[in-house]
């Protein structure tokens, strides 16, 4: 790549070795969680004495874990749906570059993912307490929507930025009106952004701890909160089984997003 002598070679390969070590270290904790989840030891033990699926069976048998999983799925699906509608609309609205106050509006829209969650979760707790919605599905879903809508907004905005304006001009010059051009050009081209947004919103809400923990009230424990409560008292291997559920969901989402993008690129060509 870059001209180098023997010393350069040494440097180059030690750099690559360093990077590979780093990549291994990045994968290590995830791999450990997966390994622990199929170990038959009840605590943390390396190497695992034997392999078994007992931890998964235990989770599926326990009504509390099942209830938590159900709550998580409902909250994540509902908030992802809401976030997608709101985030997409806002992304289309803010796609106009010459909009007065645009950067201010963008700052407000993406603030929820930059401002630490626990800080506004506390404010949200005060407000929900006043409204009597603390520990209700409504409150939790709304809060998760606030957290995930900016992610959808970013995903859709990025796909709109990839959209070549000349396509729109071509449609307009061929006699389509603005609505037609939007329907036939913009919407199909931003579809992968929307699908990506839904999936990111879902996976973020599904794994969110701090927000659900602060807002949970007395009942309503999502899956991450249950795991969090357990791990704070005592770290054991059954939590690793729950943890690997999160890893699998994250992997599925990544594969899904890659597949959508591939399929879309094949259909429309890479812009």
């Amino acid at each position, binding site marked *: 790549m*870059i*001209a180098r002598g023997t010393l*350069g070679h040494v440097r180059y390969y030690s*750099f690559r070795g*360093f990077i590979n070590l780093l*990549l291994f270290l*990045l*994968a290590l*904790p*995830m791999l*450990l*969680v997966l390994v*622990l989840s199929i170990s038959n030891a009840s*605590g*943390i033990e*390396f190497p695992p004495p034997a392999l078994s699926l007992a931890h998964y069976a235990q989770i599926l048998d326990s009504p509390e874990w099942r209830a938590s999983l159900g709550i998580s799925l409902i909250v994540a699906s509902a908030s992802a749906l809401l976030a997608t509608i709101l985030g997409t609309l*806002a992304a*289309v*609205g803010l796609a*106009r*570059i*010459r909009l007065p106050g645009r*950067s201010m509006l963008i700052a407000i*829209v993406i*603030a929820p993912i*930059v*401002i*630490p*969650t*626990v*800080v*506004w979760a*506390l*404010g*949200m707790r*005060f*407000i929900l307490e006043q409204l009597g919605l603390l520990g209700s599905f409504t409150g939790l879903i709304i*809060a998760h929507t*606030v957290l995930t*809508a900016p992610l959808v*907004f970013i995903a859709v*905005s990025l796909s709109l930025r990839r959209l070549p304006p000349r396509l729109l*001009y071509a449609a*307009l010059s061929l006699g389509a009106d603005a609505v037609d051009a939007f329907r036939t050009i913009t919407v199909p081209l931003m579809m992968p952004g929307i699908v990506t947004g839904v999936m990111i919103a879902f996976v973020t809400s599904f*794994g969110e*701890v*701090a927000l659900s*923990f*602060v807002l949970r009230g007395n009942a309503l424990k999502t899956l991450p909160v249950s*795991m*969090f409560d357990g*791990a*704070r008292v005592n770290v054991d291997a059954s*939590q*690793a089984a729950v*943890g690997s559920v*999160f890893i699998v969901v994250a992997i599925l*989402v*990544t594969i899904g997003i*890659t597949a959508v993008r591939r399929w879309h690129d094949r259909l429309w060509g890479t812009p």
Partner: protein
Amino acid sequence: MTADTTADTSAEVQAEVQAEVQAEEPAETLGRRLSRLAHALNRPSRLTLMSYALCAPLLALLGVCFVLPLLFMMHTALHNPVIGGAWPEFIEALREDHDEVPGEPVFRALVQGFQQQQEDEAYKLTLKPFSQQNPELWRLLQHSADTLPPEHFASAKAWFIGSDPAWAEADTWKVIRRVAAPYTTHNLVNALDVTLNPDGNLRLKPEERRGYSLVIRDTLIMGFWVTLFALLLGYPLAYRLVTMRRTPARIVLSGFLVLLWTSVLVKAYGWMAVFDRHGIINETLMGIGFIEEPLALRPSWALLIVAMTYALLPFMILPIYQSMRRVSLDQLRAAVSLGAPPARAVLTAYLPATTPGIAAGCLLVFILSIGYYTLPAMAAGAAETTISMLLVEFAITIANDGMAATMASFVLVIAAILFWFYMRTFAPIRGEITRRTSQRVSAR
């Protein structure tokens, strides 16, 4: 992006012009046409209004569920709830009276409050803020409340001053006014471990009585280390990612995305498994005979910083990667072919071009690290308390909303300031970087 914007507006102008031309009578003068056109350009176009309408639902949601809670939280931090709610007549009378030592109505209201207090034990608790702020004043109040004669008397003021001359001193009333004010800096002062003298001067608490300020300091230091490590690891990783072939780069990038989207719980859990008593470090060291007994590696700041760096690394890598992709590697090749040693080539030809990504990554990682709750709560022990752990503790366990809100406001203010810088340095959606760069290039 410049091309985009000009195209955007020029298309609009063209559309307007065409509409005008079609509507016009051929006999119309050029001057009238121009003035009508100028008028059309000045009014907000339908597209602009529609854009606002499309953002409105999300902005409404964020206004009610994001901005309002934050404002309410800051209000709670400064709000003085107890005394104001419990002694309404007294507070009102005090607010209407502006003398150094107030007149009869204030003293009468105080008598009323005391009489109520004698009937109701729970009412006594309302004097607590006084005891926290100023024990002497609290004793004075208690004493007067206990010796208050049951019958009515002609002048309440005279009785109070007769029972204790301190009631006639301006200083006493200064303190009372401060405690009874609708807003108080009490929480703020408490969180920073300073005490407020009656004359209004701030004094740092003695070393052994400080607590919260140490937590704030520790959290900021931890945020600094996490940001530094994330940068030192993230920059080479991002660089390697840009120089990789297409397919492996895609795989590694997907790996980062999995890392980004896996719940932070799992990351914390994974690192706890590494640092555990029977974790992989201890087992390996014992396996090669380096140590006899497992080391107590958890909880520790080291674990916290490692796990946090790990969890926040994608937020560092992705912006740097984005900005590196905009910089051609040819710059680096040119520097090397002109004789620069590799390190110098990177420092002078590559690093400056990627600073927006670095700035964005560092700001984001720092903001997120000081406000992270889940990871510290899982991985840290009592000795490694962070601000966010403290604030959740105040809010949920101790139910001291004022202190919780104060701690949260600290994080919020720091985060908001850094977020402002973040929006200025790096905004991929706004496309500002390309615009500025192109302006700079064309200026040359």
